[in-house]
């Protein structure tokens, strides 16, 4: 193992994946073809109530847990690559047959202070811990987020970005507010995963509202349950305009 590491060091070869590969590896979202007659089988099969057929077919990626039950229920639905993130909650709702590019970039005024690096403080507000595993995986050798200038900080006072997972349980409310207030201004909040965006499977449990948006303003919505680590890295790089 050490020999191999040494060889990599000498050759200068990085074991990590290129940004393009990371960007290309996406989660899949459902999309019906033109045969769809809005019968509603898919909406009934969807446990997260992400699919709606009232007034045209649409899927809300903020509620989708990517379980693929809808593909099993209806043969007219096929897989389509999903976006990694979006900047507005409404952008996560996709209507049938409409392509749109939602992976925008935050205003220059928001990211001007960042230079070319961004520091993250992770805040768990009641997640199921899969999102934590994926957030940890951002720093493994495949994704290697530090090459884009992304790092994790131990204290919110040193952070630019709050990466929030979980649906905001009542018990975490005070701690979450304090953490949010401790991040210095011109901060950004990232809602990571379905339950941070909309409460997901826990929306009717002991949580505050639907997702973290009811407690703090959200700037970036990272899609997935859990989002992939490469998706998280790509979201940071593209939304904050980091060099890659």
């Amino acid at each position, binding site marked *: 193992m050490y020999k191999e590491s040494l060889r990599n060091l000498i050759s200068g070869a990085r074991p990590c994946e290129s940004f393009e590969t990371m960007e290309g590896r996406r989660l899949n979202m459902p999309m019906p073809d033109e045969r769809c007659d809005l019968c509603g089988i898919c909406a009934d099969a969807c446990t997260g109530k992400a699919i709606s057929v009232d007034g045209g077919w649409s899927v809300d990626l903020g509620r989708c847990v990517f379980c693929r039950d809808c593909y099993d229920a209806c043969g007219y639905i096929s897989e389509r690559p999903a976006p990694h993130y979006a900047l507005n909650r409404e952008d996560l709702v996709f209507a049938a047959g409409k392509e749109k590019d939602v992976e925008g970039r935050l205003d220059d005024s928001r990211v001007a202070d960042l230079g070319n690096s961004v520091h993250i403080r992770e805040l*768990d507000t*009641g997640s*199921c811990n*899969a999102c*934590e*595993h994926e957030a940890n995986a951002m720093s493994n050798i495949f994704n290697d987020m530090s090459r884009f200038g992304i790092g994790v900080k131990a204290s919110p006072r040193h952070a630019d970005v709050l990466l929030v997972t979980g649906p905001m349980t*009542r018990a975490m409310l005070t701690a979450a507010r304090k953490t949010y207030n401790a991040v210095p201004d011109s901060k950004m909040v990232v809602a990571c995963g379905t339950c941070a965006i909309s409460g997901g499977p*826990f929306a009717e449990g002991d949580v505050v509202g639907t997702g973290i948006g009811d407690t703090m303003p959200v700037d970036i919505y990272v899609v997935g349950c859990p989002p992939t680590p490469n998706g998280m890295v790509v979201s940071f790089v593209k939304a904050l305009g980091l060099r890659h």
Partner: protein
Amino acid sequence: MIRRMDEGIVDLGGRIRELMEDGYGVVCMYATEKGDMPRSIQTVLRKGERIVHITTVLESDSYQAMSPFIPQLRPYERDMREMNGLDPIGLKRHYGPQRLQWGYTEAHPLQKGELPAERHNVPLTGNRMSGDGVFEIPVGPVHAGIIEPGHFRFSVAGEPILKMRTSMGYTYRGIERMAERPAAVDQTRLMERACGDTAVANALAYAHAMEGDTEIPRRARLLRTVFAELERMYCHFGDIGGIAMDAGLSVPAARGAELKEEVHRMNAEVCGHRFLMGTIIPGGVRRNIPDSRLDLLKKRMLRIGFELEELVGALDDSSLFLDRAETTGILTHENALRYRALGPTARASGVKTDVRKELPYDAYSEVGMRLITHDKGDVYSRMFVKAKEIVESVNLINQCLDLMDGCVIRADVSIADGFRLGIVEAPRGELVHAVNIVNGGIWRYRIRDPSFINWIALETALPGNIVPDFPLINKSFNLSYSGYDL
């Protein structure tokens, strides 16, 4: 599975003690609310494959405390107090981690009907150490690394820890209450997300509880075993990498994370989800691994076996690592038995316990496996057990792939009323789902995660260790917060 139902025992504590002398251990204990069912305490005990289920009907909201003479029951009594409001008579103070961060003034979260809006904070009480030179260090709920929220108080005199108090409940989402739906509704989604890195085990326990005696197709049973072992592999790789990281060895740590990622990617390739969510369903499996992919999986298994050897070899050769890991955070054999510690944690302390062996479910009865134990109970032992278990998982998966045949992967399930139980071996240990179904609806759903017990084991392993070793010890136990809080 052999079950015996006993009803209406007055002296529950005495009865449990009798059974424990006979070699039984308490697997799960919980309270049910009045309504379709009488108010009662449900106790499940297990010895090997023999299971005893005791229903004790309660007349009032109190019962004779049992934990003073049965330490295993400490977390359960606390749970019944905080969640259902049952008072143990004669118990001066509760031990073990706090279950909730808040309480209702006049109600309890698992009581039926609407809950009042008014709540108050539950302060962390009891067991505080005081004296000259004794200080308390509070940690959390927001930690320095990327982990879940929980609050710890270390009582220290200088560097060594005298005592740790744990306050949990930050990730309480009310899953047990949410699960009280008609039994026919498929709740796999919710159960998988009770604890994300134990998704397969939770879904399996849920499925076993719902299936009862339904015959599961052979291919489905084999696939379930493969999925469960894949999950164990990535969990253990993550732990080994984490232990190396906390011991300050960055190359093995990176290697552990790399191998974990490889298993995740393999998962995504063979069944479409990195954490294998959505693979299991009551009655069988939802995702098939086509025969054409089996060879691929086998090849990967072979490679992972080699790489693991290299990784563990690098740690074994490092005197730096051994210095940190050996004799650190010892969970003694006695304490492991006393609190009935579970899973790799218990096996590292020399307790021979493994549901896969004792109560074989799915395909575990068809394949051979070794029970890995170690006798020291320190951080190194736990790492050793986990590393060896990965090798066993590779073996198990290979055996299952060889046996794979048939093409049916799902059977129909009809859910009957009564008491249902699902016990599986999750990566962290024995995981129990106990369900009471009345009139086709779930009256009470109880999830008993292995972490529910092992948090107490961690508290007993700490005293005498220095504060900087806490992260290392904590990582070697690798307990789940969300599985505890639910």
